[in-house]
């Protein structure tokens, strides 16, 4: 099935854009913006707003129509969890039944990153958006190490508490600092022959399952993921490795 952006008619290919060009606001700037949008591959373009940001920058709002389409059936994508997400109660029941012990999860915002909002949303008692955090799960022993935790410290602590899973949050992504830091953790684990000892999960607004798996993680969760998604993945993965 080929699909295109939908404005008000099927296959009209209408897309809304906004961007800034480093030129003074003028009629010429507006025309340049229109041509720029056409060059991006749009068939038609209307510049509906042009506003000066300073003497050297102009902001544009544009609408374009495009002929480009995507074959939806051929889109290759996998979620860490998919459709069969367990609820908090189901996760706890699952743990009681399958493992007969607490599952230990250690979370941290690693490297220089000081933004705990992601790891807190997954781990704190309160959780986020009416999804309780892992600390609230009776069958999960959750340790939130907070921000700016060196990868070495995370591993050391994980060994100390005999963790089943490590959750690594990365919010700051400027200059790809998150990729380097995430890769470093896997390198350290591999160097210590510890990679198979833990389920290792990355999370953050710019993290996808695909990116995380490429970096050697078991899974990655982006924005919109909650504690129950992460918990489901951990317990299913643990069960899988027991079966193997």
């Amino acid at each position, binding site marked *: 099935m080929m699909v295109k952006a939908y404005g008000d008619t099927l296959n009209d290919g209408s897309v809304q854009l*906004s*961007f*800034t060009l480093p030129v003074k606001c003028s009629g010429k700037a507006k025309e340049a913006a229109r041509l720029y949008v056409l060059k991006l591959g749009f068939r038609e373009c209307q510049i509906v707003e042009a*506003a000066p*940001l*300073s*003497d*050297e*920058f102009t*902001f544009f709002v544009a609408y374009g129509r495009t002929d480009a389409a995507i074959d939806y059936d051929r889109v290759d994508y996998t979620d860490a969890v998919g459709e069969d997400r367990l609820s908090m109660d189901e996760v706890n029941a699952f743990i009681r039944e399958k493992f007969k012990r607490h599952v230990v999860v250690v979370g941290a915002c690693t490297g*220089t*990153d*000081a933004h*705990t*909002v992601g790891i*807190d949303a997954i781990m*704190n008692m*309160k959780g986020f*958006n009416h999804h309780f955090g892992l600390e609230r799960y009776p069958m999960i022993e959750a340790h939130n190490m*907070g*921000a*700016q935790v060196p990868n070495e410290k995370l591993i050391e602590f994980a060994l100390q508490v005999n963790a089943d899973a490590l959750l690594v949050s990365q919010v*700051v*992504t*400027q*200059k790809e*600092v998150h990729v380097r830091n995430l890769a470093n953790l896997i390198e350290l684990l591999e160097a210590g022959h510890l990679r198979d000892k833990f389920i290792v999960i990355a999370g953050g*607004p710019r993290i996808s399952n695909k990116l995380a798996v490429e970096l050697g993680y078991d899974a990655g969760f982006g*924005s919109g993921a909650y504690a129950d998604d992460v918990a489901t993945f951990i317990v299913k993965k643990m069960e899988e490795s027991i079966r193997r």
Partner: protein
Amino acid sequence: MKSKLGISAAKIAKARRLAAQIAAPVQKFIAGHTTTTVERATLRLMGADMVSSGGVPVPNIAVDSLRDKLSGGVSRWYISALLKTGKTPQELNADIAGGLDISKLPLADFSAIKKAASGLAAQFDRKVSAHVARRNGRLNRYRKNAKSPLLYVIVATGNIHEDVKQARAAVLQGADVIAVIRTTAQSLLDYVPFGATTEGFGGTYATQENFKIMRAALDEVEPQAGRYIRLVNYASGLCMPEIAAMGAIERLDMMLNDSMYGILFRDINMYRTFVDQNFSRMINARAEIIINTGEDNYLTTSDAVEKAHTVLASQLINERFALNAGMEKRFMGLGHAFEIDPSLKNGFLYELAQARLAREVFPEHPLKYMPPTKFMTGDVFKGYAMNAMFNFVSKATGQSIHLLGMLTEAIHTPFLQDRYLAVTNALYVMNAMDGLAGEIEFKRGGIIAKRAAQVLDETVDFLEQTAETGLFGAIEKGMFADIKRPKNGGKGFDGVVEKGPDYWNPFEDYLKKELGL
């Protein structure tokens, strides 16, 4: 100020008494201690600057060389070195950077050292007085154009020269206050980096040269903007007083500066933070730099409705510590934030209640109001609407310093256009409802008045518990922001030193005298 919320003045007075009671034992500890960064800041106030070829700042080299003499303070050694070598601070800095060990030089006669110290303090005083006069002169010249609240935006490219372009654009769009957000983790460096910097993560290094570059850029755009543009940085972290010293020297106008933020959110040792915040606030107070406290952070880790009282409690504690450091109320930009879950029924009324309560408890203070961050998502359109609601509350309740919400808050550091859209939103809302605050009265016994009364009651209870436990113990128990910090844990504890009977710090003496302490 007439209370529109009908809150009890007696209860506010009680809360203030409790805050004073909570701060008193801490203040006693502060008086008996110094820290490595307090000593380094003192050297900076005297003119210590530059770095060695290995990048170690001169204040660090000097203080490290005197590590076993810190209980007496480092001032006499630096001044003595000036006298013994007959050099200016600039020349001495170059020598120290080149390897001169001032701890090895014989001490000059103390009366000569004291005399030289008065000269250095007078020099600093003249500089700061000129800065204050310049700032006040410009504020007065452009007072017709002053907005209320002041519109505050952040630039954060990592490259100071790129920051300048973004700041200039934001000013021309209508911003009044520019904050150069710091690079991630600078707060945990136990030194201040040197020189102009072009690399940073999530922000730009706070260096004296970067301060100078941005100050010059904002002064340059001032005539075109028709407003004095205030510059903000962060006197927080392990170098709190040093950043304050640099800000005083380079005419910054505001500093983020909280008495407990570093302890709770950066795991800096509590003794270290309390001593550091006091000295940094004395510098800020003398330089008439408005501090911005960080109560908004409480609401990013805890629920904004359940824990609203911790914000008011922290504001009162911050106020007390600032008063103890000789700061006037007009320089206390106490913080709070618009962070209630947008799906909560009547959440907007609670926001109005909280913001108005802050205004009524702190009528003379330039309150700093922070935008929604926690519930911002990739839906930039909804985010833009939330920011409009935030703008409305700020104007309707008479806030002073308004940090503009960015529609892309949850996505990336702001694009140039994001700031423009934020300013446009605020100017529209605040102009359209300019006189509304004067028209508003809150219904007695209504949702808003009841909510404000409830938060005040909870604050008094919370402060009573804190007073009973003691502030050090309360932080250890996790009573603030649900974060527990051990007394002797955290970063920077080894830099805390008990003052000996021979402790001497001429700048502390000078500041105390100036501030009437």
